[in-house]
């Protein structure tokens, strides 16, 4: 009886069997990479805004403190988006004819707030509170990156749960003295771990509670 298959089928079947194994592993690896890539997390992706506001210019150029605009960051869950009148404190006097700032002036005239596109958007089942983080010595830069170097606002970190937990499991690696929370270029003068452990004690940060589900998911 004639052979059904050509002799090359032997090689082909061996290659496909072993190849399938690597293909599956490769696909899983690819999925894991995509899941952590800016395609999913939006890290470093600049969003279109009604006005191309530059944190770089306002923070490092002019030297405005974070709390001038984000004024509720120390005592509210929400850091606060400045009202148009906050912008107009200055822009009633400078750049008054700038084309770029027309939406701000229009908002001021009509009383209709600017509709900024939210850059740091957590899922609704996460209860994030700015004030507790500020009170316990988590610097703005730790989560938001060097905004003083960002001409246009973008996410510096993934905001994925593993990223939150990296700090909640070992806060000593990140906390800083309260007085330096709003300082963009702060670096620890001694070893961060030693300083962090001391601050965790000093600020009464109870690490054993920080990974309870209900800390973030209420």
């Amino acid at each position, binding site marked *: *009886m004639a052979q*059904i*298959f050509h002799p090359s*089928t*032997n090689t082909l*079947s061996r290659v496909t069997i072993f190849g399938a194994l690597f293909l599956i592993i490769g696909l899983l690896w690819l999925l*894991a990479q995509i*899941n*952590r890539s800016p395609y999913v997390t939006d890290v470093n992706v600049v969003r279109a805004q009604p006005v191309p506001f530059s944190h770089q210019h306002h923070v490092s150029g002019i030297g405005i403190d974070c709390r001038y605009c984000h004024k509720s960051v120390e005592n509210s869950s929400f850091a606060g988006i400045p009202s148009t009148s906050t912008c107009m404190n200055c822009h009633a006097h400078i750049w008054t004819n700038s084309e770029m700032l027309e939406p701000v002036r229009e908002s001021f005239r009509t009383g209709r707030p600017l509709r900024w596109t939210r850059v740091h958007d957590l899922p609704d089942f996460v209860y994030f509170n700015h004030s507790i983080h500020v009170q316990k010595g988590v610097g703005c830069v730790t989560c938001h990156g060097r905004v003083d170097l960002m001409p246009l606002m973008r996410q510096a970190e*993934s905001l*994925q*749960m*593993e*990223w*939150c*937990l*990296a700090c909640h499991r070992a806060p000593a690696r990140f906390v800083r003295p309260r007085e330096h929370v709003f300082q963009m270029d702060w670096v620890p003068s001694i070893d961060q771990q030693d300083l962090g452990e001391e601050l965790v004690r000093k600020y009464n940060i109870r690490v054993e509670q920080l990974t309870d589900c209900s800390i973030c998911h209420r």
Partner: protein
Amino acid sequence: MTEPVIDKPTASATHDVIGPGHTFGSVTDKISVIVLTQKTPQGWWIGFGLSFLLVMVLFYAITYLLAAGVGIWGVNVPVAWGFAIVNFVWWIGIGHAGTLISAILLLLRQRWRTSINRFAEAMTLFAVACAGIFPLIHLGRPWFFYWLFPYPNPMGIWPQFRSPLVWDVFAVSTYATVSLLFWYIGLIPDLATLRDRARHRFARMAYGILAMGWRGSAIHWHRYETAYLLLAGLATPLVVSVHTIVSFDFAVGIVPGWHSTIFPPYFVAGAIYSGFAMVMTLAIPLRAAYRLQDLITMRHLDNMAKVLLTTGLIVAYGYLMETFFAWYSGNEFEMYMMANRLAGPYAPMYWALLFCNIIVPQVLWFPRLRAHVPLLFIVALIVNIGMWLERYIIVVTSLHRDFLPSSWGMYSGTIWDWATFVGTIGLFLALLFLFIRLLPMISIFEMRELVHTEESERN
């Protein structure tokens, strides 16, 4: 289907594992012709068509479930585990007979396993496939089912390894994998036989690819035997472990009616019990329809009936001990749970379960009744129903009256619960119909081996 054949318990028929007068050739012909015949029997089309209709019902029910959510089912507080878990346990249990027959009976060198192991293993696979559907679709968001697996996820957390529900994932997926490998490796020599006998070019190609280049050389047989024995060894603990872990899903919970140390052995016995009942439910019509009475002989049915009786008695012991310890515990909630089972709103189901699982199988004590094929079929069918009722009683009566009377409630399945359940029965049967049409339902080469050993014993 023709009218059922009643076999007379003649001396040879009860003792032989294969009918007289068979040769290597006749065995091969008889089994392979069912697959290789060009014309599909009309009965097959009717059976497959009806099952396929039910598969469509299943798809419809699942699609609606995905669109609307689990609210379409009858589950609610306090009975949050309903049909999905009942059916899961029922199907998983049914699968156990296949593994027992193929692994443990192989290691114990029980020759009578030969003609029933192939389709019992296929039945296992299809039952596990049906079982696997339920835990997936009963998740609130089934599309996140992969969260059950421990993998480096961006949430930075692992599943709760102390939970039996996670052990279940491993138990069931291991079980499915090992069963599939075992079944497939056992099929390889037969696939080669089909490849060599098939006329149609497509059939030759298909069986040829599946046979993986089997030529039947001594080295092939040597490796085959080694692999098969190793897999049998691997599958043996699974017979016990899978349903033990399924029982932990209940026993680990501090719920009266679930929190009981007898659960693991009692679940394993129940699994084998229901599995053998299902094997008989399938084997009896199959041997009649395809005239396989000389391959699946009265000896097989007799032995299976005995296994059914034995495991049924173990299960009966389980019920007895459950009741006894509810009383002996002196715990008011345990005692109330049992009183509620015996006389509460679900009492008719409980008594029906005792009737199906304990009273009816007692007829199997009598050799004359064990030789009555239609009776065996009816008993097996009743045991199947009884085992489903058992799981329903365990899940529902333990939950529906919580510790506080303020959280009492009643449960019943909705039309969607029933549609999903009946749909999986359709899926199971449809897969089985495809299997008997496309693959040899009895192991050809093992039957040839049997012809050889029987012959040498006779001479």
